[in-house]
C-alpha cells in the first residue's frame, strides 16, 4: 500500500479514531469562543472610537445602564450617552449583522455554484439589489418605506442571481472564468442602468446621497431600521445551519449529491431565494459591500476545515468582526471625512481575490497549499 509507507504519521495517528476526532471539535469550540470574545471587544471598540473618544469602561457603563442595570457611577454626560447609544450602537450592530450576513451568503454561494470565487458582490447580486433599491427611490415608491426598498432589492438580487447562474451554466460545467465574467458583465450593465436612473432623475438633491450609498456605508443608520436586517440574518442563520449537511453534499458534486439523497435543483433554487433575500435586505440597509463574503469562508476554512456545520457559524462571527473594524477604520483614517466602508473592504478583498486565483491556478498543476 503506497499510502501507508508514504505517510507513516497519519497511520499511527489514526490508530485510535475516536479520540482522534476530539481535537478538531475542540478547536472548533475554541475558535467560536475566541471569536465570540473578539466580537465583544470589537463592538466595544466600535462604540468607543470616533470623533469623541469614550473610554471602554464608560461604554460599558452606558450600555449596561441602558439595559437596566443600576449604575451609581453614572458620571457621563447626556451627549455621550446619545453618541454611544443612538449614533454608534445601531451602526455597530448593522455592521456586525451585515458582515455576518455577507459571510453566510458567500459561504453558501461557494457551495451552491461549486466555485471558490463566488460572492454576492462579484457575482453582480449586490448590483442587482442596488438597482432594485434605486428604482424604488427614483420612481418614488415609498409605500412601506424601508420595506419597499428591501423588497425591491431582494427582487433585483434574485433575478440577477438566476441570470448569472444560468449564463455561467450554459454549455455545461460552471468554470471560474465563466462565472466571474458573467457576474462582472451583469454588474456593469446593472450599475450603468442604475447610474442612468440616478442622473436623469428629477430628484437631483437625493442623487448625491444615493450615490454615496451605492459605495456601501453604515452611516446614518437608526434603531428603527435595524429590525429588518436582524430578522433576515436570523432567518438566514437558522435555515442555513439546518441545511449545512446538504451544503456539504454539494461539495461532492451534483451527481453524487443526488445519489446521496439531495434534490439538487430544488435545494439550489430555494437557497438562491434565501440568499437573495439576505443580500437584498442588507444592501438596502448598508449598500453593496464587497468581498466580505469572499474572504471570510476561505479564512475560516483554514481553521475549522470545510464542513459547513463549522464553517457557517465561524464565518458569520468572522464577518461581523471584520466589518465592525472596517467601519471603525472608515470613520477614523480620514477623519473628519468618512470613507465608504465598501471602499475599504474592496481594498482588502481585491488582493485577496487575486491571491485566490493564483492559488487555484497552482492547484491546477500540482498539489497547492491549503
Amino acid at each position: 500500500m503506497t499510502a501507508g509507507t508514504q505517510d507513516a504519521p497519519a497511520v499511527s495517528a489514526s490508530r485510535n479514531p475516536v479520540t482522534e476526532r476530539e481535537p478538531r471539535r475542540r478547536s472548533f469550540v475554541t475558535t467560536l469562543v475566541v471569536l465570540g470574545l473578539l466580537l465583544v471587544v470589537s463592538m466595544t471598540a466600535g462604540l468607543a472610537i470616533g470623533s469623541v473618544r469614550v473610554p471602554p469602561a464608560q461604554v460599558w457603563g452606558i450600555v449596561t445602564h441602558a439595559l437596566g442595570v443600576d449604575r451609581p457611577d453614572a458620571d457621563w454626560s447626556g451627549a455621550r450617552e446619545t453618541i454611544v447609544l443612538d449614533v454608534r450602537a445601531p451602526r455597530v450592530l448593522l455592521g456586525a449583522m451585515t458582515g455576518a450576513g455577507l459571510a453566510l451568503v458567500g459561504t453558501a454561494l461557494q457551495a451552491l455554484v461549486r466555485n471558490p470565487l463566488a460572492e454576492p458582490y462579484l457575482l453582480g447580486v449586490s448590483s442587482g439589489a442596488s438597482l432594485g433599491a434605486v428604482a424604488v427611490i427614483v420612481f418614488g415608491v415609498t409605500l412601506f418605506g424601508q420595506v419597499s426598498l428591501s423588497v425591491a432589492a431582494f427582487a433585483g438580487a434574485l433575478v440577477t442571481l438566476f441570470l448569472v447562474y444560468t449564463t455561467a451554466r450554459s454549455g455545461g460545467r460552471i468554470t471560474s472564468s465563466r462565472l466571474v465574467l458573467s457576474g462582472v458583465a451583469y454588474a456593469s450593465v446593472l450599475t450603468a442602468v442604475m447610474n442612468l436612473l440616478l442622473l436623469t432623475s428629477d430628484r437631483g438633491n437625493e442623487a448625491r446621497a444615493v450615490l454615496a450609498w451605492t459605495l456601501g456605508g453604515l452611516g446614518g443608520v437608526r434603531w428603527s431600521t435595524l429590525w429588518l436586517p436582524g430578522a433576515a440574518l436570523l432567518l438566514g442563520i437558522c435555515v442555513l445551519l439546518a441545511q449545512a449537511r446538504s451544503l456539504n453534499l454539494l461539495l461532492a458534486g451534483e451527481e453524487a449529491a443526488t445519489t446521496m439523497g439531495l434534490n439538487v435543483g430544488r435545494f439550489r433554487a430555494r437557497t438562491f431565494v434565501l440568499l437573495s433575500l439576505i443580500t437584498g435586505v442588507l444592501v438596502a440597509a448598508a449598500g453593496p459591500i464587497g468581498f466580505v463574503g469572499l474572504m471570510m469562508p476561505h479564512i475560516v476554512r483554514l481553521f475549522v476545515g470545510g464542513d459547513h456545520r463549522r464553517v457557517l457559524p465561524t464565518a458569520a462571527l468572522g464577518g461581523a468582526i471584520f466589518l465592525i473594524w472596517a467601519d471603525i477604520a472608515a470613520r477614523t483614517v480620514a477623519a473628519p471625512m468618512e470613507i465608504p466602508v465598501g471602499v475599504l473592504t474592496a481594498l482588502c478583498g481585491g488582493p485577496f481575490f487575486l491571491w485566490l486565483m493564483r492559488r487555484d491556478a497552482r492547484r491546477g498543476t500540482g498539489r497547492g497549499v491549503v
Partner: protein
Amino acid sequence: MTGTELSVEGVTLTAGAQRLVEDVFLTAGPGEVVGLVGPNGSGKSSLLRAVYRVLRPDSGAVRVDGADAWGLPVRKLARTLAAVVQDSAADFDLAVREVVAMGRSPHKRLLDGDTAEDRHIVESALDSVHALDLADRPFDRLSGGERQRVLIARALAQQPTLLVLDEPTNHLDIRHQLDVLGILRSLSATVLVALHDLNLAAYYCDRLYVLRDGRVVSSGPPAEVLTRGLLAEVYGVDAEIAVHPRTGAPQVTFLPGTPTRPLTGAGPSAT
C-alpha cells in the same frame, strides 16, 4: 442488508438529437454482481446515470424492488441505492472521514447530528476498503486510487442494498483493483458495475451485459458472453478465449495487429 432487485425495462436515453441508449432491458437479482462492459461511448455511463436517477429516460422504466426509481423521492431512493460516480470533487478542505460521513445524509433528518453509530458505520466502511488509515487526511491530497476507495466507502456508509459503480477500478493499481472488486463481491447488496477490463469482469461478475452503440448486444454468464465472435464484433479486435485453469473464469487474450473491422464503427458517439 439483503440485495435489492433491479430491473431496467426498455430504457431509451437521448441527449438532444443523439441517442445514448436505446431500448435496454437489464436485470440484477438480489445479491447478484452484474457487469456492464463495452467500448468507450457505448452508453455504459448513460445507462448507469438513468439507474441512479440523474439522467431521466425518454421511455422505459427503472425499477428498484418493483418501484419506479424515478417516482421515488430522491432521499428515499438514496437509502436503497448508492452510487460511485465519475464526477470530480471540488477542492474544498474536507477530511476523508467527513467525505465518508456524507453517506449518512439520506438517513438523517434536518437537524440530526452525527451519532456514535454513524461514526462507527463510517469507520467500518473505511475499514472495508482498507482505508481506515486515511481517515484524517485531507481528501483533496489523496492519490486517485485512494480517492476511489474513499468514494466506495462513502457509498457503503449509505448502507445500500443496491450499489451502482461507474468504472470504479479506473486509476487503481492492480492490487487495489482486485481489492475493490473483491469487496463488491463480498457484499450482500446487489451490484451493477461498469468495467473496462474484460478479464476482471469475467472473474468477478455473475453475469455480464455487453453494450455497443447504446444497445445490449449480448448478456449472460461471462463464459457464454465472452466469445471470439462477440469481441470481434463489439471491440473490433481478434482475441483468444480460454478457461483459466486456476480461476475457472474465461480468460481473454487480445491478439494485436489483426483488427477485424474498422474501429470507427465502434461509435465514438457518446460520453
